[in-house]
């Protein structure tokens, strides 16, 4: 079974970490990740840019573009994509295509800061 582990924390707090502390945390996490990678059990790992960089697409008809992260509590996170796009407009186009195929709910579009594509042996 593959498991997704989704990371939640107080963004303001993490954002106020010193460069040194941030690097220290990343180094500790890298140890855990390398261990998994060696066993061929690590899939993609991403560090997202802050929610201030987020845009949300409500999959209404017509779709509605809102600045900021997804903020509703009555819908739940069901999946995610990582797509390579030139800019936000292109990412929104992809999200709109996906939304047309599966209306209802919303997509939050958030730039990825760091991506380790990982590799899983199946």
């Amino acid at each position: 079974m593959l498991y997704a582990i989704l990371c939640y924390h107080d963004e303001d707090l993490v954002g106020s970490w010193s460069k040194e502390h941030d690097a220290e945390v990343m180094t500790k996490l890298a140890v855990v990740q390398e261990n998994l990678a060696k066993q061929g059990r690590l899939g993609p790992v991403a560090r997202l840019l802050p929610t201030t960089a987020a845009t949300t697409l409500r999959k209404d008809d017509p779709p509605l573009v809102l600045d900021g992260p997804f903020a509703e509590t009555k819908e739940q996170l069901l999946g995610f994509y990582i797509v390579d796009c030139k800019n936000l407009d292109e990412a929104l186009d992809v999200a709109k295509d996906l939304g047309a195929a599966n209306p209802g709910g919303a997509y939050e579009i958030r730039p990825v800061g760091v991506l380790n594509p990982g590799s899983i042996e199946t």
Partner: protein
Amino acid sequence: MTDTAWIDAALASARPQAVGALLRYFRNLDAAEEAYQNACLRALKTWPQNGPPRDAASWLIMVGRNAGIDEVRRHRKQEALPEDEAISDLDDAEEKIAERLDGSHYRDDILRLLFICCHPDLPATQQIALALRIVSGLSVKQIARAFLVSEAAMEQRITRAKARVAEAKVPFETPGAAERSERLASVAAMIYLIFNEGYSASGDTAEIRSPLCEEAIRLSRLLLRLFQSEPEIMGLAALLLLQHARAASRFDSDGAVILLEDQDRSLWNKALIAEGLALIDKAMRHRRSGPYQVQAAISALHARAGKPGETDWTQIELLYGALEVMQPSPVVTLNRSVAVSKVRGAQAALDMIEPLASRLSNYFHYFGVRGAFLMQLGRNEEAHTAFDRAIALANTSAEAAHIRMHLDRLMRDSQVPVKAAKATQ
């Protein structure tokens, strides 16, 4: 992090919201600050044992409000509040109460808190000092250090600023749309001022003052989280991030300025650049341009160029042209002339800045730029005169050192011997 560092971090991040709400209750900066301090003291006592409350800001607001309740009664009639003891340190019962009290207020609370710091009656230096003290919660000592003045002088500056704010009577009602947007503009300008205090520092003071840049970035992110659809706030945050991304490459080991085209681009902070680019991208979708967005867009073009030769100067010149229309100023024209020199050559650029001579006759950068154009045109004697004037007008030793480097190059490359550079400091 050490054992209690997480508490300091949690208190710092909850501060703007907590002090903003307390200010709304008490309508008095000193009372709000005192109540907040009391709440922090209690947090330091109870959080280590009980762990942090889920919503630190609400907890601090409730405890702070109770601590200063006598103050409140003097001002207006209040609904009954739970006793201090009833406020749990363990669960989030207080969160609901605080939410009922604050609800949608918190956005305007924080904006008001920032806004009273940039009251037009306050000179810029007082605005910045007050914001760093009240909103960011830096100690007087820290602020004094960043401003290179004594602690006593800074204490006095902040006390004076507070007194003026108290006299100025900032309205506490929820602002209307027009007023809110005016407040936002003043606050954005103040955040930019804080950033520039750090950014314009150089040499030995650069390191001491760079926390000002970080604090300005933190405030701009905070503002953007509150006002998510304001393209100019996105532009401001993007501008600060993109400029600060170059911090590690802006000075050489002697503290002399390194120009953009000579900077080691591998030292640029890629995470900050990525965030800045994402924000400007997001802002431009609104098609409501403004000075911060344009400046951020210019910075973005530099950030996107892997090598100086890849810089899109044509686009940069167009953007400076747009900025000239929005904010006409000889300094903007001077900046545009640098882009013009790249696109159309030094003569066109020189022609463009000649008319600015009288207005910029005491401006260091004018003579630095003019000297560079003249040097490119091979008019070495005139370039020399311009550089001499620039050194005389330099604000920092880093600026002077940079121009001296030009003079050295001029003398080295020069076919005609030029008189030795004056050892002006």
